[in-house]
């Protein structure tokens, strides 16, 4: 019985190149994409300007994916991050239009995200709903709130000083990239080096063992969802600033890509856990794909089709690797 509960991780150990291919498969895939697009359109794809474009395009996704990583490390997942990002951005936009001071509006926007996340956490950890059902429901309701806040239309006429968040370019580098880097570093440090981070990993490994070891499992889960909501809010606010307007569904699509990025990143580790470096590589793969396919002239519907196929490939790969003997 005990043996059936432990996952034996099979990585070919005798053959070093093969092992690197298994573990580094994700990085190999990223390099392969760069080589392919670079070969197809070197004059457009392989430029500093385009690199900057890619990073700018993935900056917001990487923030939301980092938030999702925290929840998935703890063994849950959150379908509502996209809707939460939309709602937080919309709240900030409507408050600014109503004449609120910028810092105050942003704080309220962040609190909205935090509250959405904590709600998910309480539903999952205290009321014991499955994360799938709980966050599917909150995704729906939060999406409804976003329509209510925006009145179902696009909110324009935001104050100029708000735009530095998403549109300024210090050192010629788009501001969202800095935000993404800061969020990534913070999440990485928290997951890797703090007690709460290691507790999240413990929950993700086996919740019952963690509970019996005296860890307050419910609290840790609620916190993880809270962090996810906060991260989603940061992403949503930056998006509204970057676009200069807020729509009722603006950031919803980030949810799927964020989960995809985390899944891709899980293949980077032997143990198959969610991890921030892996998530970032996953985000880059999605960014390079989408940018490269644009340059080559493949339309965005096909891109979405391909992203789905990539998720299946990544999950199948990790299933192969962690198959029990």
């Amino acid at each position, binding site marked *: 019985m005990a043996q059936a509960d432990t996952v034996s991780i099979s990585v070919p150990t005798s053959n070093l190149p093969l092992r690197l291919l298994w573990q580094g498969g994700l990085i190999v895939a990223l390099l392969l994409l760069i080589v392919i697009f670079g070969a197809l359109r070197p004059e457009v794809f392989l430029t500093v300007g385009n690199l900057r474009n890619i990073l700018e395009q993935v900056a917001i996704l990487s923030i939301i994916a980092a938030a999702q990583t925290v929840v998935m490390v703890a063994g849950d997942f959150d379908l509502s991050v996209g809707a939460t990002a939309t709602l937080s951005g919309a709240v900030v936009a409507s408050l600014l239009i109503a004449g609120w001071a910028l810092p105050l509006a942003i704080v309220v926007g962040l609190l909205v995200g935090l509250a959405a996340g904590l709600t998910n956490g309480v539903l999952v950890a205290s009321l014991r709903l499955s994360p799938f059902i709980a966050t599917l429901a909150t995704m729906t309701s939060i999406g409804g709130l976003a329509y209510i806040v925006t009145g179902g239309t696009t909110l324009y006429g935001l104050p100029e000083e708000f735009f530095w968040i998403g549109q300024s370019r210090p050192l010629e580098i788009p501001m969202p990239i800095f935000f993404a880097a800061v969020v990534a570093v913070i999440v990485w440090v928290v997951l890797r080096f*703090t007690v709460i981070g290691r507790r999240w990993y413990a929950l993700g490994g086996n919740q*019952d063992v963690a509970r019996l070891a005296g860890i307050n499992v419910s609290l840790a889960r609620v916190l993880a969802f809270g962090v996810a909501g906060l991260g989603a809010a940061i992403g949503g606010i930056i998006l509204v600033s970057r676009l200069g307007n807020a729509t009722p569904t603006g950031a919803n699509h980030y949810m799927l890509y964020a989960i995809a990025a985390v899944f891709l990143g899980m293949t980077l580790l032997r143990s198959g856990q969610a991890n921030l470096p892996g998530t970032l590589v996953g985000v880059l793969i999605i960014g390079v794909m989408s940018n490269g396919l644009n340059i080559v002239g493949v339309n965005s519907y096909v891109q979405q089709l391909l992203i789905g196929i990539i998720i299946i490939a990544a999950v199948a790969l990790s299933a192969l690797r962690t198959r029990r003997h």
Partner: protein
Amino acid sequence: MNDAKPVNTADLLVVDGLAKDFDGVRALRGAQLEVRAGEIHALLGENGAGKSTLVKVLAGMVHPDSGTIRLDGEPVRLGSPRAAERAGIAVLHQELAIIPTLSVAENIALGHTPSRGGFVSWSALSRLARTQLERLGQSIPIDRLAGGLSPIQQTMIALARTLVTEARVLILDEPTAALTDSEITRLFEILRKLRDEGVAIIYVSHRLEEVFDLSDRYTVMRNGATVATGEIASTTVDDVIRAMVGREPGELYPPRAASTGPVVLEVRGVAGSRVGGLDLQVHAGEIVAIGGLAGSGRSELLRLLSGAQRRSSGDVLVDGRKVAGKGVAASLAAGIAYVPEERRAHGVDLEGTVTDNITVASLRELSTAGWMSARRALDLTRRSIAAFGIRAHGPGQPVGQLSGGNQQKVVLAKVLARAPRVLLVDEPTRGIDVGARAEIYRLLRQLSAAGTAIVLVSSDLPELIGLADRVIVVRNGRIVSELAAHTADEETVLAGFYGKAS
């Protein structure tokens, strides 16, 4: 005994009048337990006797309806696993021992990770882990992922964690289920050492030989109440069994058949990944046991015969007719039924009801033109419950709520609903208490008397010898010897397992 060996008779842990109802089912009714510092105290009882509920209460996982728990004379409230831990009670759960995705060091310190300002202090963490492993005399690399370790190493890590909390009462629930004999010996050495350091150890096990080897005192529970307690040295296995089942221990193994019928199952040169070209004949009315070490190919042979694993070569014949294919469907169609080793993983759907489980293999027989007849399904279930003596509230009860023995009877009822010619059973009584075991043995013997050929795999030597007519010993995928069970003794069979002269 107290004269010969002075012991600290002050009771460290006293449980009195503990009662607990689960949805109207009485799990505990006035349970009592007195455990002294520096003793190993066996907690015994059949499945469903209330042992695990009592353990869960002490672990802070279940809150009793009434009763008191005292530590050093002081009443304590064990509201949560944390509270139990603070009170000095640690529980080592075999199935919930470690987190596979964390390192050895992090597992040992789980819940007590040394930190400064919210950040993990890695050097203190390593020191802590090394110190505890040294106390246990273990040299497990602390940076390894715990999931990749052997069961004994995982048990040691869980044990090390209880040392971190300086537990005064240590509860072990079936700790040896996944361990080999030499590993069990090592574990026992460590437990004795902890006892000598003054830890009170509560040891829950089904293996009475182990209990008599290890424990100083015992407490027997039955139907949620404490029915006997005393010194191990002044009791016998028979007395303990009598207390556990509340009646005389009848002959555990039913009598063998006087004669056997024609060959029902014939195996010709069957080979798989470990098994290499086995021949075997099993007659009607005969129970053939396959013995061998884990990994010898004994379980693989059953999988090959059942079609759960593809045969690379060889033929299987039932009543002289060749099984047409190699998959499960072909074997089932030929009348070969299979009860796999891991009951919870492969044998039963724990969330499904008794009816769901019993009928799942016979849906076609219970249906007309694709519509299942609920009446026939219920009929079959009722008949099975009666015939197999399944103790359940009714056909609608989820199987997960039944005891291990009754779950196993449900599995048997499921495969036997198809009236198979051949029954393959792998570890049919693992983790099942004495009373239910006797019933399962009787069922198997009845079945074989009715003409079914039975092949049994078990790592329980007394069962192998007591239940079977013939014992076939396999090693490295080949048959090395064959013994008539009524003349075999444990030593010769075991010698065959290890390849010594037999």
